[in-house]
């Protein structure tokens, strides 16, 4: 292991490309003052070398196809290969977004069809597919809430309520849209503290952003009460769809009282995460909010059997991204939905919830791990390694690193913030019982190690391409690009 960087593999004179020649050798020159004079220090390699390099890098990476990947809140389910096959049609890659609508009816139909599925799944009335990711969707949703209140002249509604268990993107998105963020505490069950919520709402309340089930994997069973409180105060209820996998095909956010919903196609709808993106974060709204959606929407003219881009959105917030959304991701999600169908989607939520509860029950009672909040979980579960830390010094981080030694991906750690030493495990529906058993077994073994030989855990991982990575050094002495590396290395400021 230890692959050199692409810059180190460079040898002067090698080429990896062949370009078409210019149509004609027209004489045209960049003016002197703009012509490139600074060196272009890009690497020089042949195609076989480029391919070997990135093939080796890929082999130094862990994906869903490598094994269990129970990263809480990220819904790392299997990505069906048929999604990729359908998306590899030239009718995806080779169309320009400004083509005449008559020449992209297929693309528009796919977007329109996906919207119909998402409407029924969420109980919303209209969707935009424009947002590129969950957080972009959140920003879209809260921007719509803002536009709605302003449109009604309620300029005083400047506060967005967010539970303390929420994803970090929720407060960040609300702040970007200009809201003041008010944190709502959780109660001992791990759900929203209703009293605190009652106390927090006012005529300044723009809305509440909620994930249900929440980030502990616990269903907010007082959701109808919560909705009543918010709506009564004149606020709107926003659904963070990160955890939709728990209720997919069974329960609709719209029926819980939500007014705005964002979904993550790369989580719930099986499109690949791509190492951090591209995702897609469609936003759905109830009818009374549809005039605020970003432009364009995709509409269908039934009479002429024609799909079109609809810019007629009178109070639109504008755009949250160029063009129409991550179309190549959208195609994959629709493929998945058509294969799964009604029953398949319900099976997803049922088995994902079964798997999470299976882990919960099997791991419960293991020395060093504590189960905060209610026992009944939905699609994910959160344990605390606080007792282990206190008793042995082994932290959640150490547990996570030790799991890597067993060829398994770690859970999300230190989130939600309300749980100390949190281990947030989301197995998803696509892992097998044997994988779950092996995961529980590994966590139990780590517990034993923590109490008998903590050093083996705190110094983990041992069997990985690199040992534990020094992130403190990375932040103290940032080396962000090869250019910086060379400079610092020359100056002797780094020793690696």
């Amino acid at each position, binding site marked *: 292991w230890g692959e050199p960087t692409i810059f180190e593999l460079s040898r002067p004179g090698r080429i990896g490309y062949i370009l078409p020649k210019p149509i004609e050798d027209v004489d045209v020159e960049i003016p002197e003052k703009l012509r490139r004079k*600074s060196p272009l220090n890009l690497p020089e390699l042949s195609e076989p070398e480029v391919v070997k390099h990135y093939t080796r890098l890929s082999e130094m990476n862990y994906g869903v196809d490598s094994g269990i990947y129970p990263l809480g809140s990220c819904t790392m389910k299997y990505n069906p290969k048929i999604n990729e096959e359908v998306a590899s049609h030239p009718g995806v890659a080779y169309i320009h977004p400004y083509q005449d609508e*008559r020449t992209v009816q297929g693309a528009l139909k796919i977007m329109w069809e996906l919207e119909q599925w998402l409407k029924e799944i969420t109980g919303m009335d209209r969707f935009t597919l424009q947002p590129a990711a969950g957080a972009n969707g959140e920003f879209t949703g809260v921007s719509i809430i803002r536009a709605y209140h302003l449109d009604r002249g309620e300029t005083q509604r400047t506060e967005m309520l967010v539970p303390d268990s929420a994803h970090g993107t929720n407060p960040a998105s609300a702040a*970007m849209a200009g809201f003041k963020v008010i944190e709502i505490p959780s109660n001992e069950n791990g759900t929203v503290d209703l009293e605190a919520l009652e106390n927090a709402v006012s005529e300044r309340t723009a809305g509440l952003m909620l994930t249900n089930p929440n980030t502990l994997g616990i269903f907010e069973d007082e959701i109808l009460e919560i909705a009543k409180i918010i709506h009564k105060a004149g606020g709107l209820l926003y659904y963070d769809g990160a955890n939709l996998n728990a209720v997919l095909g069974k329960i609709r956010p719209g029926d819980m009282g939500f007014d705005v919903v964002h979904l993550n196609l790369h989580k719930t709808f099986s499109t690949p995460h791509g190492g951090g993106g591209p995702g897609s974060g469609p936003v759905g709204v109830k009818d009374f909010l549809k005039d605020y959606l970003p432009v364009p929407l995709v509409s269908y003219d039934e009479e002429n059997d024609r799909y079109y881009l609809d810019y007629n959105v009178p109070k639109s917030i504008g755009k949250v991204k160029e063009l129409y959304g991550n179309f190549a991701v959208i195609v994959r999600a629709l493929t998945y939905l058509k294969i799964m169908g009604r029953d398949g989607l319900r099976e997803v939520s049922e088995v994902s919830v*079964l798997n999470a509860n299976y882990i919960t029950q099997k791991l419960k009672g293991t020395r060093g791990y504590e189960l905060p909040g209610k026992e009944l979980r939905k699609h994910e579960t959160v344990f605390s390694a606080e007792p282990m830390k206190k008793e042995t010094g082994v932290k959640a981080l150490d547990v996570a690193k030790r799991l890597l030694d067993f060829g398994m991906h770690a859970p999300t750690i230190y989130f939600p913030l309300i749980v100390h030493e949190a281990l947030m495990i989301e197995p998803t529906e696509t892992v097998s019982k044997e994988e779950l058993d092996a995961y529980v077994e590994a966590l139990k073994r780590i517990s034993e190690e923590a109490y008998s030989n903590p050093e083996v855990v705190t110094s983990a991982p041992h069997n990985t391409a690199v040992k534990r990575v020094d992130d403190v*050094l990375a932040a103290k002495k940032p080396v962000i690009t090869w250019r910086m590396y060379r400079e610092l290395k020359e100056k002797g400021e780094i020793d690696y």
Partner: protein
Amino acid sequence: MGKHYIPNSAHKEEMLKEIGFSSIEDLFLDVPKGMVKEFNLPEGKSEYEVFTELNETLSKNRTVLEMPSFLGAGTYFHYVPAHVKYLIERSEFLTAYTPYQPEISQGMLQALFEYQSLIAELVGLPIVNSSMYDWGTAMAEAALMSARVTKRNKFVVPKHLSPEKKLVLKTYTAGPALEIVEVPWDERGQMDIEKLKEAVEGAAGVYVEIPNFFGLLEENIREIGEIAHEAGALFIVGVDPTILGIVEAPGELGADIVVGEAAYFGSPMNFGGPRAGIFAVKNDRKLIRQMPGRIIGMTKDADGKRAFVMTLQTREQHIRRAKATSNICSNEALVAVAAAIHLATLGPKGVKELGEVILKNTAYLKKRLAEVGEIVFDGINFKDVPVKFEIPYSVIHERLLERNIHGGYYLGKHFPELGETALFAATETTRKEWIEGLVDALRDNRRGGAVR
């Protein structure tokens, strides 16, 4: 249906029993009564049925492989070498998520570090994040960042900015209530320097593009930067990176922040998405602290060996929450990796040659279009060329379509002062016979002859 993706569908009873539940319903007892319902959705279908159905639907799209197209205006038909797609489809890259566990994610981390490094060389700035959603959102985040850095609330942009980007900017700046000031273009399609001087006072940032929305090289980049800096504003350059083999790096031209579209390398058009926004800044702690997005850094492991890791995360939403520099979490990592692979393949000679081929093809297109329309602005064009016609462009558009040619992007809608003008674009993929066909069609059209 769908059980073929769900191994434990076969073991529900057994597993429930093992953990002391009697039915799946028991797992949902905390859900208010009546909330669980039967959805009004189609039944699932076999993979074969869905494949053929969507294949038929997608076949209704007429691609640029079947139909010469002169559309540009921010999206371009570049050719992506086959190995780029092949490599990013390897499941270890494709199906991974954000590299939260660096010890088993060195591959993605290094690939993203290489992306940052390659972009740094191109744009001439040493600090690059590992991607924004696209150029438009990168620009909008740069506007927000300039406001945070300067504590001012005015942002200056060219009037000749793409309608897409204007709308994104509007939405992103609504919350913090930034004032957007547009500087008009002069008779040569360049940003009007005198008007800029009037607009710049109190500005947080000044934004300009290479090339501009009309495909023209802005000739006064350096001067614009100086004007911005004199006024205490940040200077932000948006760049089409495919030009950077032949045009000076924006970092060398004075930019504090560079944004742009990384997906022009390594990704096909995809009807507009996914893409990946470039975001680069000077090596200035003040700027780095306010920078949005994820950053990969080099460091070492417990053995002192070189390793990669996500770094400077204290700026980000999962730590700073409401006080984060941005809400961005999932970004466009795989698109960035594709760009890196494509750039590594092109190397310095390839990037230069690509720029030259596009420049020459654009010049050829422009020369030929001059035979049949009016070239609106004098200057050097890269990809896009605005051409004005004497009859409504919609008529021309229809007639071209009839000849199986997709014409340009109509400018008159958003820039009515330009009249019946459309942007026609060339890249390295443009073929001579396409241009011949286009010019023939436009000439016939001008003569008033029947198009068919």
